[in-house]
């Protein structure tokens, strides 16, 4: 049994397969692990992927890029309008729906964005199936967090018409977390993870709380005006000015030359992520002049310095929104192709000096891998409830602590049950008391969950274990089991491991 995870981005699409307990990105027929999400309509055929991207220089009006921006959107949508304004391919409105106008010689065709997405999905399916060698239709598809009902529906329809059986649609940041298996090994514990996704045309930052292996999005921000393309453009502008400086020719007004330059700048940008310098070479760029220019990584970073600040700023505002300090974040996941840029990684690392930066998986493959893992989890499960997009569950609202004495003698609070734990929950803790005590007291405190560690804990109960045997050396092992029901009522049992003595209390919730 195998399943597929597919990520359709604005610029690129990528698919991963889950097989034999492993999720792997599969390379397409051109040998690339990531396929450009570009569809070109030629006179007799339709091409998808790299070939379409390359032929765009000559066939710009019949080549569709960034279809995701328009998918499932109404003509009045601001993002759709922006896309229509930028698109080289004419977009018209037909019966309230947007259609691409494709002119391939004899007849004028109107292609819906769903059909374009379908072509890309078909390509991804082909890629996955050729890698698996079998016909696999079960798929998990990722969607951005800001996708609305209509867009999800349109995407789902496109995938379904490509022959996919959609197991579930998951959000991109969650898929990224799943790819790294955060919180998947043991269900206990709580952590905050920042997902930083810098895609081709958009930037999104998301704060996710992982509690008991369940992900909960605390806050998310999407910026549509910045993305990898901005870096390429900046580099292309630089190259154009270089060209002007050496040949006294301004090529900025020449669309075709600029497109060639963009393609070249894109390649240079990619190699600059790994190499210190890159050579940009375009044959016959303008007026028969060949263009050759070397760009160093330092030069690139200088050109894009303002873009970097733009890219980092959203993190700060997100932290502000959820009220976290950089130290409250336990992990940072990078995804999106442009998150490869070394400078960007350095800037994020500077922002979170003590935090682990997860980059072991290539950033543009993180999301499809997560989707494939999810597909593997769902595989073979019957009665899949598909409408799980927005499921709500009961979670505990308070942190529960026990007061202890630290080694230095100061009072410390040990967290027994963190807030946001999905209910019903059961937590077992082993506590220790000095062996020379004949009785132990567990002072239980609560504090309402809030920004950082919130308000001061206040005491709500105590459990006393008496008549314990004194031990000259060693400690008393006390096991505390906390059980919280769905309505929020709490039940605590404490047992002394040596004598088997136990005490229990039940605390009702406020309501």
């Amino acid at each position: 049994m195998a399943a597929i995870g597919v990520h359709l981005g604005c610029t690129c699409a990528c698919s991963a397969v889950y097989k034999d307990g492993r999720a792997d990105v599969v390379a397409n027929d051109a040998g690339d692990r990531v396929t450009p999400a570009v569809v070109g309509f030629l006179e007799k055929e339709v091409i998808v992927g790299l070939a379409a991207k390359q032929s765009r220089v000559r066939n710009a009006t019949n080549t569709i890029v960034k279809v995701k921006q328009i998918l499932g959107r109404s003509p009045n949508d601001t993002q759709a309008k922006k896309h229509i304004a930028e698109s080289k391919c004419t977009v018209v409105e037909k019966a309230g729906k947007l259609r691409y106008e494709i002119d391939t010689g004899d007849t004028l065709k109107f292609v819906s964005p769903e059909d374009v997405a379908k072509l890309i999905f078909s390509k991804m399916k082909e890629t996955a199936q050729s890698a698996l060698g079998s016909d696999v239709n079960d798929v998990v598809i990722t969607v951005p967090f800001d996708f609305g009902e209509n867009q999800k529906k349109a995407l789902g329809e496109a995938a379904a018409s490509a022959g996919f059986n959609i197991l579930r649609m998951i959000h991109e940041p969650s898929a990224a977390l799943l790819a790294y298996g955060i919180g998947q090994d043991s269900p206990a514990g709580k952590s905050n993870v920042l997902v930083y996704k810098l895609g081709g045309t958009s930037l999104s930052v998301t704060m996710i709380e992982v509690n008991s292996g369940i992900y909960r999005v605390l806050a998310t921000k999407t910026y549509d005006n910045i993305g990898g393309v901005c870096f390429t453009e900046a580099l292309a502008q630089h190259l154009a000015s270089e060209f002007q400086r050496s040949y006294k020719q301004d090529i900025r007004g020449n669309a075709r030359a600029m497109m060639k330059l963009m393609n070249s700048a894109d390649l240079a940008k990619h190699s600059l992520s790994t190499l210190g310098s890159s050579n940009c070479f375009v044959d016959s760029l303008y007026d028969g002049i060949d263009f050759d220019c070397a760009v160093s990584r330092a030069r690139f970073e200088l050109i894009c310095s303002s873009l970097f600040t733009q890219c980092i700023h959203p993190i700060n505002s997100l932290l502000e929104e959820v009220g976290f300090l950089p130290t409250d974040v336990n992990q940072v996941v990078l995804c999106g192709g442009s998150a490869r840029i070394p400078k960007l990684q350095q800037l994020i690392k500077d922002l979170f000096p003590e935090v682990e930066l997860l980059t072991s998986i290539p950033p543009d493959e993180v999301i499809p891998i997560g989707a494939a893992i999810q597909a593997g989890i769902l595989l073979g499960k019957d009665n899949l409830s598909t409408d799980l997009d927005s499921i709500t569950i009961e979670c505990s609202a308070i942190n529960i602590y026990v007061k202890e004495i630290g080694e230095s003698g100061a009072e410390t609070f040990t967290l027994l049950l963190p807030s946001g734990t999905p209910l019903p929950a059961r937590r077992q803790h082993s506590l220790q008391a000095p062996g020379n005590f004949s009785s132990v007291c567990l002072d239980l405190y609560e504090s309402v969950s809030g920004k950082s560690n919130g308000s001061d804990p206040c005491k709500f109960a105590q459990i006393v274990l008496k008549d314990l045997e004194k031990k000259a050396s060693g400690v008393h092992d006390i096991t505390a089991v906390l059980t919280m029901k769905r309505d929020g009522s709490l039940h605590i049992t404490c047992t002394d491991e040596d004598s088997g003595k136990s005490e229990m209390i039940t605390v009702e919730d406020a309501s």
Partner: protein
Amino acid sequence: MLLEAKPEDLSAVTKVLSAASVLCQVEPVGRWFEAFIKRRNRSVSASFQELEDEKESSDESEDEEFQLEEFARLKTLDPKDWKNQDHYAVLGLKNLRYKATQKQIKAAHKAMVLKHHPDKRKAAGEQIVEGDNDYFTCITKANEILSDPVKRRAFNSIDPTFENSTPSKNEGRDNFFEVFTPVFDRNSRWSNKKTVPKLGNMNTSIEDVDAFYSFWYNFDSWREFSYLDEEEKEKAECRDERRWIEKQNRAARAQRKKEEMNRIRTLVDNAYSSDPRIKKFKEEEKARKEAEKKAKADAKRKEQEDKERQRQAELEAVRLAKEKEDEEARQQALLAKKEKEIQKKAIKKERQRLRTSCKNWNYFSDNEAESVKMMEEIEKLCDRLELASLQSLNETLSASAKEDGKVAVEKQISEVNAQLKKEKAEEEARMRQSTKGAEQSAAGSGGSKSWSEEDLQLLIKAVNLFPAGTNARWEVIANYMNLHSGSGIKRNAKDVINKAKSLQKLDPQQKDDINKKAFDKFKKEHKVVPQSVDNAVPSERFDGVDSLPWTTEEQKLLEQALKTYPVNTPERWEKIAAAVPGRSKKDCMKRYKELVEMVKAKKAAQEQVMNATKAKK
């Protein structure tokens, strides 16, 4: 390190938690999410995973105890008699039985194998029976059966420890719930449906009790009896034998299944008949129905009474009103009578007065005959005149002299006579009217269909055309009428007969009337045509006076004149006109032209006919 408790401290809750649970939106990803949802859907409380682990460990520890117990009997088991062995006991799961999970069975088998495998025992120096006869085969067999869901179900179905008995009605009479609750609990394990309704207690609502019994009456059991098959299919040597075995087994299973269903049925029947709640419900129902019936009857009776009372009241009112009316009428009649009498008297008196006054004046004449006539007239006057006029007449008579009186009387007489005449005329008119009405009504039930002049003409024509004695004469006439009538009214034989009879009955004057009318009509019609022609051809000379038609006499005279005065005669037309009296020269010329035209037309027609016949020839 935890704190030490103070001596006076006790476990206590000092305040409730400040916040209840909150609803959070979570991402549907990851295995823990799936586990959570699964748990939630199954509504298993607490951490399912952990609890299961705990249970398993405890089960295993219990298994150990059984096996120790079981050792002695286990070794005596005969592998050939596997069918009658309790496989759960063999694996040491005697207490868990059908509740044991696959995991537990597997674990138990593993433990048994470790202990009882021939190789192990051989190593321990025990004597081993060679081949399949060793008791270890029983363990293998038990595992084989219990690890296969189908075989396990078959074995569970005939679980030797299951008590098939059902309590009788009498047993459940006194302590129904104590007797039946365990039986239903026991049998509910055969249900295909997971949730089996409980018998409940005395306070269970009727809906729940109904649901309980309907569940058990439609009990869907998974119990089957393939384990008890006499023959084994695998033993068969050929296909036919296998088929035969299969048939046998199927019959036996069906039989057992039927018995099982009967058993459940009996159980439920017994329970139902001795269920005190059902009895109670039935009684309640009966009481309720009776009460309802009674209420209904009461309501009906009351309604009837009300109606009766109302009717009585109405009748009374009507009676009273009638009485009052009658009384009034009588009073009025009395009054009128009195008045009439008074008037009569007055009239009598006045008449007398008139007579005497006239007598006094010798009836205004000296002549005997005249006076007699006057007397008659006076009598007439007395009869006819109203009280008031009589009075006034008498006043004038008494006040005036003889001559004046005569004038007055005569004037009165003439007035009276005129009135009489008028009355007579009116009477006659009325009479005629009434006869006419009678006639019209006699004109038939079909008289509703009006008979126009044309229709009457047509009828007369038809009656003459089909004389008496024609076969189905009146139908024929009716058909003829329908065919030829322009009025479009359909008439049947009856209508026609009626009309014809009424026509026969008509007096000759009316007949004349009709004829005249017909003639007028004819004239009118025939006049219209030439007029229209004249109108259409205004160029023709037209004298205001229309000439009268030529009589045969005149025609003859004209022809004669035409012959006597040939064409070349001078002043021919003057002479012709002189020869024909009453006709002017112009008339004659016109007539001549007409005649010429007619002759010409006749000749043309004849020629045409001739040509036609010739052409035919």
